[in-house]
């Protein structure tokens, strides 16, 4: 089984078609939508994890591209400006996947990008407004 974390970009004319659902059905790919920004008539973006036998997964992604969807490997794009961070820990209060932690002995913020699901809660919670999330 192969697993990929991807950013799908939907041109406005594709947004209204259920291309992901059709792909899941046709190619039997397990799809976990982590984040989506989809609005009628606008370019849509979706952060997904897709899992399936390598060949089927690639065929599924090819299908999406044929439908006009741009498929890119997700560059994990959470950024914390460490030079200004005071390690207060307020961001860790809302990080349920525990990607952000502040612990003994150093009590400095530890950001594990592999655990981050880019939910963006920490962006709101950081009192110094030092975190940005893009996908």
């Amino acid at each position, binding site marked *: 089984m192969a697993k990929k974390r991807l950013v799908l970009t939907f041109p406005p004319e594709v947004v209204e078609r259920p291309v992901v659902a059709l792909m899941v059905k046709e190619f039997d790919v397990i799809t976990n939508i982590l984040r989506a920004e989809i609005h009628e008539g606008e370019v849509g973006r979706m952060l997904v994890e897709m899992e399936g036998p390598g060949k089927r997964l690639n065929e599924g992604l090819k299908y999406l591209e044929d439908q006009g969807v741009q498929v890119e490997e997700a560059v994990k794009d959470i950024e914390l400006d460490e030079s200004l961070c005071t*390690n*207060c820990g307020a961001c860790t*209060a809302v990080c349920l996947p525990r990607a952000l932690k502040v612990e003994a002995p150093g009590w400095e913020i530890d950001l594990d990008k592999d655990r981050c699901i880019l939910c963006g809660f920490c962006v709101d919670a950081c009192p110094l407004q030092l975190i940005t999330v893009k996908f």
Partner: protein
Amino acid sequence: MAKTYEEINQRIKKGEAVVLTAEEMTELVKSQGAKKAAEKVDVVTTGTFGPMCSSGAFINFGHSDPPMKLARVWLNDVPVCGDVAAVDVYIGATALSENEGMSYGGAHLIQDFVDGKWIKLRSTSHGTDCYPRREIETWVNKDKVNQAFLFNPRNAYQNYACATNGSENTIYTYMGVLLPNYGNATYCSAGQLNPLLNDPFYRTIGVGTRIFLGGATGYVAWQGTQHKPSVERLPNGTPVSPAGTLALIGDLKKMDSRFLRGARFIRYGASLYVGVGIPIPILDEEMAVFTGVSDEEIETNILDYSQPTRARDSLGRVNYAELRSGSIEIKGKKVLSAPLSSYSVAREIAETLKGSIKAGEFLLTEPVELLPSEGTLTTLDVRDEEGI
């Protein structure tokens, strides 16, 4: 064997003083006992770096020509308190920008001032014979004003509640974002490093105590507002709820934004992270016992901040070692616990102060007046004219 302030200061001047941070003192008292620790140690340094909403700064701008009595005043579009004579203002840390809303407030303004940035000053007034000018718009920075001092009415709280949220909606508070159904819990104290938790009965921290404030030297000006010493305490003297507070003063021009930072708590507003470090003289064994307190021995109440009342019920008691472990138990459920005050910067402040004392650059002061050791708070009751 008791020591005096003079004896300790003589040792500091000679470079012989033994200075430990409150963390180090806790270890020493644990391993060797308070009696030996009291003999060995002269000073214990504490530190805290947390959001302290009750903060602000006075600035005097000097007079324009023709002169003006600054009545309504905005700095970077943040309304500040004018009407203090002619050209004195007070910036309240929680005032919000009239243009940028909650993302910029008095606290950010104070930080920008400390960083030497140019600040837009705008004011209107009624005009008098002696102050004829009625409006002004200009730019100032810290080198273009007279006195500027931080004067915080309530800082360095001796303990604070642990906040959680039992409702079904996320709530946005000065204790951070609280997730529904006890989804998390936040706390805001340096615990064993906190100044007043190391001097629980205010034996040495009082009016006139010289301190580290925002990266510069400051002083305890007075008891802080809402100073409330008469609360439940553990046998070691530490209160289990917010108790003593300090009003602090210091030269804003000499401060460093590393230890004075503007913050915004989403959908709450602005607050100022203030770095405070206070040296505690180990006058005798009792002070060694006090400064030997550890996170396990300091407790606080868990309060449900979704209750819209000033008298929230306690959901239980936790100690700071439990809070610092990353999770606590509320109503049988494991709940993520997270700090809002920076332990690493609190530690840095205690270390910095320790370094200054060891280098002979920072002498201790005996309080010119002690803080009240008893007292509770009144409340604001809504009454009509017939009720007065």
